[in-house]
């Protein structure tokens, strides 16, 4: 039972058509290009792991794990893709030259190819004719093995949810841990799960988005977050499996597929059974100044992997409201949700996998601020009835007055309950002061529990009258959104131009600016990516 507004159906249809049209140039761009990270993701799916031991600053540097592995050591996947690029270019993809080397007997396995790259003895050529056929078959088989592991993880998740039980109710209670040290994060995450969290997100270290490689190993030295590494993923998932068994409900794990390594992190998430991933079409562009083209190519691939892995994505519309005004720019959130939806579906994600983001960020000093929040939240709920929706707490207007902050978080929780949100990110009263303390998290969960126990069922009774304040506000935001989509769709470059114009989060990002553009390569007609082929085959 969900609260709904009766939105003008013609307007809703128009909004979706326009979003698809505005996003088309992005899809075309993504299909015609590859990136270094997409190619590295292919190698990861084929099982290539580890780092080149002669790279990195080792223990002398920040970012070094205590067990001696350095987070700045270059992964083999980077070394191989760079070598292929240097020798024959990436416009055919990495699979043809690499599996040609394997099929022609130059190396017994992928790891050996990597070591030859390390030794400087690898020689790559792009095969043609029967050689290409042979390389394609071998590459397909290798990547299929990785996808089989992703499939097995999806099945295992479904089995665990069925056997242990799922989160007891909606919204799922989502909590962040962020100590920088995976061995510190684990007990905190387990404590949070015992205290009622259904979803644990491990927020990443500042700066990881801009690393053009994925660090390796268990790490203890992140800033304001913990590095996303395959080993950290594995350790945390195992710890949450333990606590899930103890609690009799499956506790989900979330991380971030964003930044320059989005496709690889998506693959690692699939390989290590993460359950949800932050994955926004524009966040990296707007808030990390990552090149738009790079983002869109990486994005599509990563979402196809998430689709296959049964992962729920979370989009980042809430972030716009930290730099733009939540009332004036409310329609940009709706526009972005529609764009994220259309791009996600194109990549094969289904409605139940779309944790579209929105947030409680209206200035609390504004009269009727809570009614406006309810209108915006119900608009999203009504526009995307089958998507889980990620409801984000107040941050921008949180201050050092933690008492007022606690009250505001209570109202945020209430709005989430009333409007039937799917995933509730727990707000901290100390948001403006510190990264959360143990007690902050505990108090925040008490707040959530009280509100959901006291008022969770109100979603059944809450039906704002047609023509009332909430209904009218939702309608006017939707109309503004459609008007903006019309302007975006009007431009031949669609969304790409809108981002350059500063439409979202009042931040301008031109298509050729930002970081990572040099990692984007236009594909030739003969290019081959076994992962894309296998992922697309399922959907056809």
């Amino acid at each position: 039972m969900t609260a709904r507004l009766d939105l003008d159906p013609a307007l809703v249809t128009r909004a979706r058509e326009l979003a698809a049209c505005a996003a088309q140039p992005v899809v075309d761009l993504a299909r015609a290009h590859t990136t270094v990270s997409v190619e590295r993701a292919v190698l990861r799916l084929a099982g290539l792991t580890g780092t080149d031991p002669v790279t990195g600053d080792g223990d002398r540097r920040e970012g070094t794990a205590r067990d001696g592995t350095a987070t700045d050591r270059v992964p083999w996947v980077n070394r191989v893709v760079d070598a292929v690029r240097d020798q024959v270019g990436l416009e055919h993809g990495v699979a043809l030259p690499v599996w040609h080397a394997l099929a022609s007997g130059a190396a017994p396995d992928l790891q050996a190819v990597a070591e030859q790259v390390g030794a400087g003895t690898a020689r790559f050529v792009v095969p043609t004719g029967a050689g290409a056929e042979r390389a394609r078959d071998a590459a397909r088989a290798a990547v299929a093995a990785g996808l089989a592991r992703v499939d097995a993880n999806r099945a295992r998740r479904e089995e665990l949810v069925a056997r242990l039980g799922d989160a007891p109710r909606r919204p799922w209670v989502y909590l962040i841990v962020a100590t920088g040290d995976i061995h510190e994060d684990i007990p905190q995450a387990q404590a949070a799960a015992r205290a009622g969290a259904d979803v644990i997100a491990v927020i990443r270290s500042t700066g990881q988005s801009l690393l053009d490689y994925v660090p390796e190993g268990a790490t203890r030295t992140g800033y304001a977050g913990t590095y996303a590494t395959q080993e950290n993923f594995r350790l945390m998932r195992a710890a949450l499996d333990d606590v899930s068994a103890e609690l009799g409900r499956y506790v989900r794990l979330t991380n971030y597929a964003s930044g320059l390594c989005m496709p690889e992190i998506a693959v690692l998430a699939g390989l290590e059974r993460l359950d949800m991933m932050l994955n926004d079409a524009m966040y990296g562009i707007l808030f990390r100044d990552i090149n738009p083209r790079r983002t869109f190519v990486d994005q599509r691939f990563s979402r196809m992997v998430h689709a296959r892995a049964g992962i729920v994505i979370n989009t980042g519309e809430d972030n716009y409201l930290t730099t733009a005004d939540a009332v004036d720019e409310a329609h940009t959130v709706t526009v972005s949700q529609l764009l994220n939806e259309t791009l996600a579906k194109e990549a094969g994600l289904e409605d139940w996998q779309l944790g579209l983001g929105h947030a409680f960020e209206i200035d609390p000093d504004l009269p009727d601020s809570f009614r406006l929040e309810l209108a915006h939240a119900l608009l999203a709920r009504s526009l995307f009835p089958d998507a889980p929706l990620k409801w984000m707490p107040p941050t921008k207007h949180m201050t050092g007055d933690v008492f007022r902050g606690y009250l505001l978080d209570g109202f945020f929780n209430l709005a989430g309950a009333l409007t039937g949100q799917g995933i509730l990110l727990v707000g901290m009263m100390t948001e403006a002061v510190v990264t959360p303390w143990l007690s902050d998290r505990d108090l925040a969960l008490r707040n959530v529990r009280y509100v959901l126990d006291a008022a969770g069922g109100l979603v059944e009774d809450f039906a704002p009258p047609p023509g009332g304040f909430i209904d009218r506000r939702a309608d006017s935001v939707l109309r503004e959104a459609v008007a903006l989509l019309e302007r975006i769709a009007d431009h031949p470059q669609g969304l790409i131009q809108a981002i350059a114009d500063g439409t979202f989060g009042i931040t301008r990002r031109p298509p050729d600016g930002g970081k990572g553009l040099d990692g984007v390569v236009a594909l030739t007609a003969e290019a081959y990516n076994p992962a894309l082929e296998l992922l697309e085959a399922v959907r056809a």
Partner: protein
Amino acid sequence: MPDGIDVVRPYGDTTGDGMVQLSFTLPVPPGPRAEGAALQLAGKMGIAPAMVVHSHGIGGGGGGGAAFTFFVVYGPVRHLVDLAAVQVEERAYPLLSPGEVDGAIRAGLHRQLVVLGACIGTDAHTVGIDAILNIKGFAGEKGLEYHREMRVANLGAQVTVPELVARARAERADAVLVSQVVTQRDAHLRNTRELAAAFREAMGEARPLLVVGGPRFDPAMAAELGVDRVFGRGTTPGEVASYLVHALIGSRRPDTPAPEDP
């Protein structure tokens, strides 16, 4: 405070009752021992007699018991506050209106004052520096870009220190404004020291005025960090503009550097 009362105590509901409230967590399982521990801590903080008005365990539920206890404590604090001994960082320069700022630059510099702004390191929080620089401004005051007599370049976030030094040199910047919001593991202090060292090394005495800001900075730390000025929470663009005039024009720096300290 020349006349009136110099010595005060916290105010609960009557003058001089000294009442305070505080909350904290101890790594002790809940129970009488934990409460005793909380009382001991409160006592050492000068609260006597302290009352633990609330406590609960954290980290329990499900399996093992709680390993931590959260407390809310009330009580009168013995300490007195001597208002005469309070020290505040006084603003050593007058607050100017935007017109006065432009007037002072025109008269004192005979050219536009060049300001560069950025967030350095991996910090991506730009709202603070934007509040100071962008026309839109902050707290009803227009940002520095509003000034006709200033040329402002806002380089945005994730700018490296070498990039910033190069830009400052190329643009002949009079002042470089840097924002630092993330403070975990003292990232803001380390980055600021790195900034100061890089400018010192690259430009010596001819370096531009270095100003840093962010919500968790202590304005008294400028000298220690090697910069000229530190601004904290709630800074307004007008304060910054007034300071720039004071530092760059009022005191003739940097044309005639002050004599070296012995």
